[in-house]
């Protein structure tokens, strides 16, 4: 497979939900792609549409407009039946390992569930495959006949990962995969995700609000605010040199171990507005520390810069956070 082959490719995707007071555009003309073997992080706060975007990339929602391609095939309007092959190749790990596993099922049943959707398996084959997946995530196959509810959060998340790996997918969507776990367990799962990617060359779509984690795992970052992409680029580049003031503020908001980052922190006012009552002009202007009058009337388009970075701001790069980089080299 060529390294730059787009596996999932969304073009001007929009997802609108009906709400009592009208319609809510959770994802607003977003273009997004993921290449083979890379990790793309979708970053934003609650209400930014990051989870909705991730789910619509999996065709959990039918897009209201735009197109979605998987390996160059248009799957925007495919029926659930026709999506079967796509479902096999794109799998998901959820945030909460307590609600994402059916408490009535044994570990073997949980892991084999996706397998049974696509293949006819005998009980022995099922246990064998589930055992393999379990070993791949560092758990003993002895656990197969226990119920998922008997395990700790970290172990459950491993089981959820084993389930997602059972079909040997090409893309794994991970929605805040470690944020429900303890710090020491988080590191175990992060390392596991990394080693799985090295072994299997899976692409990850990582949804997260934790920029330290994103920096650690991602090759590319997409920053969302109120359903729109406000910045996109290579992870190193975005973190070292954020162009959009919102990205700068997010980076600056990361709880820091050093004094300097804390002192120079960019603290935004207020909270993100509701996507139903979107501000005029640039959605970010009511909270933006560098907003000018024109920001409230004109909407900045997502512009591509010479180095491939994309940013939707009239004053890119003006606001810079203080981040203390370390280098263990």
């Amino acid at each position: 497979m060529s390294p730059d082959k787009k596996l999932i490719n969304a073009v001007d995707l929009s997802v609108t939900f009906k709400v009592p007071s009208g319609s809510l555009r959770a994802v607003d003309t977003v273009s997004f792609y993921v290449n083979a073997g890379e990790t793309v992080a979708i970053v934003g706060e609650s209400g930014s549409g990051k989870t909705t975007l991730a789910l619509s990339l999996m065709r959990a929602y039918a897009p209201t407009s735009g197109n979605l391609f998987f390996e160059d095939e248009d799957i925007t309007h495919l029926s659930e039946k026709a999506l079967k092959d796509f479902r096999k190749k794109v799998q998901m790990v959820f945030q909460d390992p307590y609600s994402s596993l059916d408490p009535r099922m044994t570990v073997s049943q949980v892991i084999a569930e996706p397998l049974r959707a696509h293949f006819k398996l005998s009980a022995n084959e099922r246990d064998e495959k589930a055992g393999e997946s379990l070993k791949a995530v560092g758990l003993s196959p002895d656990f197969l006949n226990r119920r998922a509810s008997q395990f700790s959060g970290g172990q459950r998340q491993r089981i959820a990962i084993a389930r997602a790996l059972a079909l040997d997918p090409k893309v794994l969507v991970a929605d805040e995969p470690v944020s429900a776990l303890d710090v020491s367990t988080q590191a175990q799962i992060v390392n596991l995700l990394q080693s799985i990617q090295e072994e299997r060359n899976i692409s990850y779509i990582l949804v997260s609000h934790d920029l330290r984690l994103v920096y650690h795992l991602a090759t590319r970052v997409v920053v969302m605010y109120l359903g729109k992409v406000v910045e996109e680029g290579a992870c190193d580049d975005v973190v070292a040199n954020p162009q959009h003031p919102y990205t700068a503020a997010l980076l600056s908001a990361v709880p820091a171990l050093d004094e300097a980052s804390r002192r120079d922190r960019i603290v935004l006012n207020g909270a993100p507005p509701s996507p139903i009552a979107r501000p005029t002009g640039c959605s970010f202007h009511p909270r933006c520390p560098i907003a000018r009058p024109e920001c409230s009337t004109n909407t900045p388009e997502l512009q591509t810069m010479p180095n491939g970075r994309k940013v939707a701001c009239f004053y890119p790069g003006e606001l810079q956070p203080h981040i203390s980089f370390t280098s263990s080299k």
Partner: protein
Amino acid sequence: MINTATNAIEIKNLVVSFPTPAGYSAVVRGINLTINPGDRVAIVGESGSGKTMMGLSMLGIQPTAAKVEGEILIGDVNMVTAADAVARKLRGNYISMVFQEPLTSLNPVRTISSQLSESVRRHNSISKKEAEARVLAVLTAVGIPAPKERMKSYPHQLSGGLRQRVMIALALINKPQLVVADEPTTALDATIQAQILDLLRSGMGDAALMLITHDLAVAADVCNRIVVMYAGNIVEQGPVAEILSNPKHPYTRGLLSAIPKFDQARPALNPIPGAPPTISEVVPGCRFASRCSYADAQCTASEPEFINNIACFHPVTGAVK
């Protein structure tokens, strides 16, 4: 009246235990801690470390099944043995609490103003008008924009960040000596977390802060002293700079190296292997030994005492890479 002349809150040999089929099991196992006026102390630990149970018993609001022993001295009152009426008087007035999820801790059918002024008037004999003036002052102090209008709001009409500010206002309104904050920013978004951390660091007035968190970075961000707990014990404590630059306990070092950092080399993270002991598990010796790479025969034979701010037979020196 309660004498709070010493102005420090002292915890002496605090044990909190729960009944299990095999008898009482301790989740807090003999803790000693002094919190001085103006201190900002972080209690850092994983879930199951006993940090929350310690916080709750300091206010005397632990679950009814819990058995609390030892002393929690607020002035000359021992919270552990104090009569309900005395404890109630202390709560809110001398010691108060901020919870993780503000929506479930605020009364949904009463306005912000009525909840806050009720709290003022319960502890002070002042008029409704005076109470409302004080509510307005404290809402302004915790950085709530347009506080006059917000006073008439109900909790669900506020965003998560504003609700947490209201909770902090509620905790501060009677000018307590100590505010216990249990994971106050975990449920909040990144940019909102930054706002609340700012408030906790510099907006608490004269009140001391005890911040309960699992995140060392949050602790470092807000506090000047860090207390690390593991499986019911304090394993290390010290000033923030000291703990971050020269952590001595292997568990503290483990926690530090498990956090992803802005490290351009992106080295693999160093997780702490295994999981903490469960509440009913009997562990001989040091409770961290089974997960510790420095552990030897001594560690599994006897439990290290907490001396010179650390409970470890083999303290390590130097910064964590």
